[in-house]
């Protein structure tokens, strides 16, 4: 048997609440085993217990109950030997140091000064190595922290919401850099509240909420469960949709609206990938994976207007997944 990279057993963490008397159960019984080479997303809203769990994996805090094993040893040992490293949430760089000095300083602590240039190059920091850390953008600061995390050549990388506060471009760039490291067989666990990050990057997703694991399954299953889009539009034949109808020239009048709705919904339902079609007043609501085809049909043949396409929210993903879990 191989030693698992990370093994959390019956993990609990309680804090005294800020108001004084009460107790906050930040982590309330987590069991999870992550094998070497796995890439796992911890997905959950703020306050779900993700950071507290990762803090225990890194040995920053001790569990109130339960055990943490990292590569078969204690988190502190694994960290101080450089087997585990992490990119922490935003903040936590020294002002007044340049990017290169920061890398040199941490390399000095790990006693690997020879790796400074290599790491700066791999994380794309060469151009900004003389910039002061406080003048770096959020994305650049996170890339710098990623560079620091790579210094000890860790087997396990822990990323705690590494892209929080980044814009879409910076986020894509960060994960691009990350992907290269992942291909080298590192074990990676990351916390995120972006569904897309879990989908794009992690073959396995652990859904955390209220300090408990709500679901732990391959991300592919998650994708089919929550990959649906919701398309809604106003069909012609009512007040709001009348303009659209005129342009189309279909000339549907009010009296025929009911039957034309039925015809329209049955045509939509016939599109491959549509799971559900329903009317809410004069709005047609379509759920399924074929959002493009449905939108095309609605805007051309059916003369619909005020089209909206929405992707599933984290909440709906949660709902879908937790429902799915209970059904098993």
């Amino acid at each position, binding site marked *: 048997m191989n030693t698992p990279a990370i093994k959390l057993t019956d993990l609990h963490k309680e804090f005294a609440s800020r108001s004084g008397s009460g107790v906050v159960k930040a982590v309330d019984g987590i069991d999870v085993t992550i094998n070497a080479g796995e890439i796992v997303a911890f997905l959950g809203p703020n306050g779900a217990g993700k950071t507290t769990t990762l803090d225990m994996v890194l040995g*920053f805090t001790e569990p109130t109950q339960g055990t943490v094993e990292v590569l078969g040893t204690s988190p502190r040992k694994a*960290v101080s030997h450089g087997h585990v490293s992490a990119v922490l949430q935003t903040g*936590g760089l020294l002002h*007044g140091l340049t990017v290169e000095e920061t890398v040199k*300083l941490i390399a000095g*602590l790990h006693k690997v000064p020879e790796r400074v240039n290599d790491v700066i190059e791999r994380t794309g920091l060469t151009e900004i190595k003389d910039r002061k850390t406080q003048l770096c953008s959020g994305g650049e600061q996170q890339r710098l*922290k990623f560079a*620091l995390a790579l210094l000890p050549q860790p087997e396990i990388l822990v990323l705690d919401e590494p892209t929080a506060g980044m814009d879409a471009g910076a986020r894509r760039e960060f994960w691009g850099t990350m992907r290269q490291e992942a291909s080298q067989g590192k074990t990676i666990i990351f916390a995120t509240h972006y569904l897309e990050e879990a989908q794009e990057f992690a073959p396995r997703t652990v859904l955390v909420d209220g300090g408990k694991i709500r679901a732990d399954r391959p991300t592919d299953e998650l994708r089919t469960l929550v990959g649906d889009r919701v398309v809604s539009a106003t069909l012609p034949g009512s007040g709001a949709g009348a303009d659209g109808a005129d342009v189309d020239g279909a000339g549907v009048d009010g009296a025929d609206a009911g039957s034309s709705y039925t015809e329209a919904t049955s045509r939509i339902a016939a599109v491959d990938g549509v799971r559900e079609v329903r009317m809410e007043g004069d709005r047609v609501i379509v759920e399924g994976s074929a959002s493009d085809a449905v939108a095309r049909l609605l805007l051309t043949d059916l003369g619909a207007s005020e089209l909206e396409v929405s992707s599933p929210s984290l909440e709906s993903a949660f709902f879908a997944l937790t429902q799915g879990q209970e059904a098993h």
Partner: protein
Amino acid sequence: MNFTYFRIDLLRQLRDIGNTAIIIGLPVIMYLVFGSTGGSGDQVVGSANEQFYVMVSMAVYGAAMATTSIAGIAAIERIQGWGRQLALTPMTSTGFVVTKVTVALTYSFFAAGAVFIAGALTGAEGSASVWIRSFLLVWLTSGLFALFGLAIAQLFKSESAVSIATAGLVLLSFLGNLFVPLSGTMLNVARFTPMYGISGLARWPQMHGAIIDNTVASMAEWPHDSLWALILNVLVWALIFGGIATLAVTRSRKRQ
């Protein structure tokens, strides 16, 4: 003690122009202002002259500002996330403290040294032994104020803490008898304040406990501090500052 960390961190502190100007520049300027009003330099005070007395006073002030500020900044940075970054390295807490104390003492060495050089160039006079012993005492007793900076930082937990600490230091230096000679009730109150002990010790080679008192006519009638009282002052305040810092750290850990 990590030498790379020490070197890069010290360089960073010295590069902070604003801070360096206040900590190293201001005491020198204050010495030149207060010290040059002391006349031609033939006024003998204790085992040296009046310029020497003012020089030691301003060096105490500068060295204490240096340690207060380095320790305060270090504590704030640790709270704001650098501590977690360091916890991902093999550096231990003890290693961090030792390295930071070395940085603080190096910085206070420069701060005290700058005033001493200004003194040597502008007429401060004393025997070689008085110079060396005074300098070592100014320099090493400034370590007490690293604890002060730490305590204030742990209490206020924000960047303004360091400004509060250095501003408070001006008041404490006044009470420490560093700016104007205190006498009467004021002096009796001042004896219990934290700058007083290290000032008295730093001046010991020159004054041997005597306190300048302009309200009495002859030096022979100047009030005196005993060595043990000054040492006691330093020890008690070290315990108080250290205790506050430790308590604040424990309290914040529990609530994390």
